[in-house]
């Protein structure tokens, strides 16, 4: 019995050895994210983006004269799986990693990449401390962090609209409350406006009349709301019905056609922040076309960011002239690269400069980009 198990181990080991034996002299791009499970729709577009980029790069001679090899690993957006995924990518010799998708999984995996000196770039992890804490000098992202959006909304309210008394509400959810808390923090730090109300509303409630009454009683000039469109629609409708004229300012969760359809005329004049409109960037349209030609459908969430990240990583390796960690991160921080999300380079903390949000105004039943 013992002999047999020893044999098995030997066979298993030999397989591992051959697997790593094959992988010589390629640039290895690791891709980690949820490719199965309920969050797969957030991970698969970035994976396909990486495949498209690699196919294109390899067809035109590869990077530094070498072919690019993809190492794809599924983390299901779960932090505990993400650490395994990261360890596996490190063992397989990934030079750079595109991922992870979810902030929690990204955070869990980053330490492992950091110790192995591998630059990591996420197309979607928006949790602010990932870059701002300074703990992960190997981390970059092609999407703006969560607090950028709140900053944008607050700057717009106090500088562009010149409002002084602002009510901040949220839907008690992670996303909405996070946005509202950042908005409150930025409002207080600015010293130019006063937060007259900070509360959470219950999603799904029949009406928000009490809270709208409170907005009137506090004489708030604006309402900054963190959350999604169903609650936003109810809030603006309730405000209209109760003749409350405070300006409504909200986030990307509200920048949805459902908001326009459901709230109808009550949505007019509302402001929402959302990712900058990228459709005018030629590379963006080209990437979408490439995807459609290959898969016949529209690309999903974070496709453009994923495409940009893959492109930025491979370009950085090319410009650095090697896969050396210091050289690659230096290239990422100093060299501009044309991507589907615009011409970007990364700041000292790893956030992409030139990627961000715009303020949109609801006018005649459509979102119009203001700045």
């Amino acid at each position, binding site marked *: 019995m013992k002999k047999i198990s020893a044999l098995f181990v030997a066979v298993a080991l030999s397989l591992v050895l051959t697997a790593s034996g094959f992988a010589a002299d390629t640039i290895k791009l690791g891709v980690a994210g949820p490719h199965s499970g309920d969050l797969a729709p957030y991970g698969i577009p970035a994976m396909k983006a990486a495949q498209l980029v690699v196919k294109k790069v390899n067809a035109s001679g590869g990077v530094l004269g070498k072919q690019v090899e993809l190492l794809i690993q599924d983390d299901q957006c779960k932090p505990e799986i993400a650490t395994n995924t990261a360890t596996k990518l490190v063992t397989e010799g990934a030079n750079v990693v595109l991922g992870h998708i979810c902030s929690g999984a990204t955070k869990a995996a980053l330490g492992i990449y950091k110790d192995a000196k591998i630059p990591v770039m996420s197309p979607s992890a928006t949790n602010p401390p990932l870059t701002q804490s300074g703990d992960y000098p190997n981390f970059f992202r092609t999407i703006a962090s969560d607090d950028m959006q709140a900053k944008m909304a607050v700057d717009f309210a106090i500088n562009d609209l010149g409002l002084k008394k602002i009510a901040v509400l949220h839907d*008690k959810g992670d996303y909405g409350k996070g946005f509202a808390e950042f908005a409150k923090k930025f409002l207080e730090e600015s010293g130019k406006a006063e937060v007259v109300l900070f*509360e*959470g*509303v*219950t999603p*799904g*409630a*029949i*009406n*928000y*009349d*009490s*809270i709208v*009454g*409170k907005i*009137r*009683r506090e004489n708030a000039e604006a309402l900054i709301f963190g959350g999604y*469109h*169903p609650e936003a*629609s*109810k809030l603006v*409708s309730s405000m209209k*019905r*109760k*003749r*409350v004229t405070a300006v409504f300012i909200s986030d990307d969760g509200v920048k949805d056609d*459902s908001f326009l*359809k*459901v*709230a*109808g005329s009550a949505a007019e004049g509302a402001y929402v922040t959302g990712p900058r409109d990228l459709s005018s960037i030629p590379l963006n349209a080209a990437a979408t076309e490439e995807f459609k030609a290959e898969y016949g459908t529209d690309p999903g969430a974070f496709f453009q960011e994923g495409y940009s990240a893959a492109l930025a990583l491979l370009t950085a390796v090319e410009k650095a002239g090697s896969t050396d960690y210091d050289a690659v991160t230096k290239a990422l921080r100093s060299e501009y690269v044309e991507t589907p999300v615009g011409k970007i380079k990364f700041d000292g903390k790893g956030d992409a400069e030139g990627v961000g949000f715009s303020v949109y105004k609801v006018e005649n039943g459509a979102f119009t980009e203001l700045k």
Partner: protein
Amino acid sequence: MDYFLELFFGGLTRGSIYALIALGYTMVYGIIQLINFAHGEIYMIGAFVALIVAGVLTIYGFSGISILVIAGIIAVIYASAYGYTLEKIAYRPLRGAPRLSPLISAIGMSIFLQNYVLLAQTPDFLPFPRLIPDFAFMEPVAHIIGSPELVILVVTIATMVGLTVLIKYTRIGKAMRATQQDMSMARLVGVNVDRIISLTFVIGSALAAIGGVLVASYMGQVNFYIGFLAGVKAFTAAVLGGIGSIPGAVLGGLVLGWTESFAAGYVSSDYEDVLAFGLLVLILILRPSGILGKARKQKV
């Protein structure tokens, strides 16, 4: 004072919707001691049917209140049919079974109906046309109570008066009360108990559909999940008022609506649910069978 009145009417509107739905819970419980967890879904189906009918009628050029009335009637018919079928398929075969079996069946039907609408219609929020116009005479008080609230209150009161008349003064009502008091005795004196139970489901579902149509046109949106939240609140209202008691359901709904509204207005909407459910616990400690509930002796 304006602020107080605003909260008062906001709570009254909420509360009367809760009451409309709670009536269905309490009537069914009163007769067969079953908590019909699928009741919230009947409310949701009522709203969806009204949305579809309203869409068709809008194409044919009907307007405002007339759509509301026609869509409301068709929604009531549909929801009643659903309630009737629900009882036939999911509860009647389990009539003699231990009490937990129909309860599980009810939860199953609730999940089934939610997912059925999710698949047959859409997982997204759909816009529901605002069918209640702004009345000019309401304009001076619009900041306290708007036209939709007024319509909801009037319809709710009319419905409740109708229900009271039905139960107190008609033969059917008498048979319902008899079945509630003692099912086997009612059967002995010639009441068709199965028909009365079906009828109870039909009436409860009709009330839920009325609630569904009103809320949908008030909130301006529907999706497959609205029944769950409304159902939980209405069930709470029914328990608060004393489950099995019809005036109790109305009172429970109003108390819950006011508590939520005042809690949100004077304390914080963060604590709206905490205070509402805290009150529920308090009332149940002091009066275990609810505000108007009678302690039932176990029939042997």
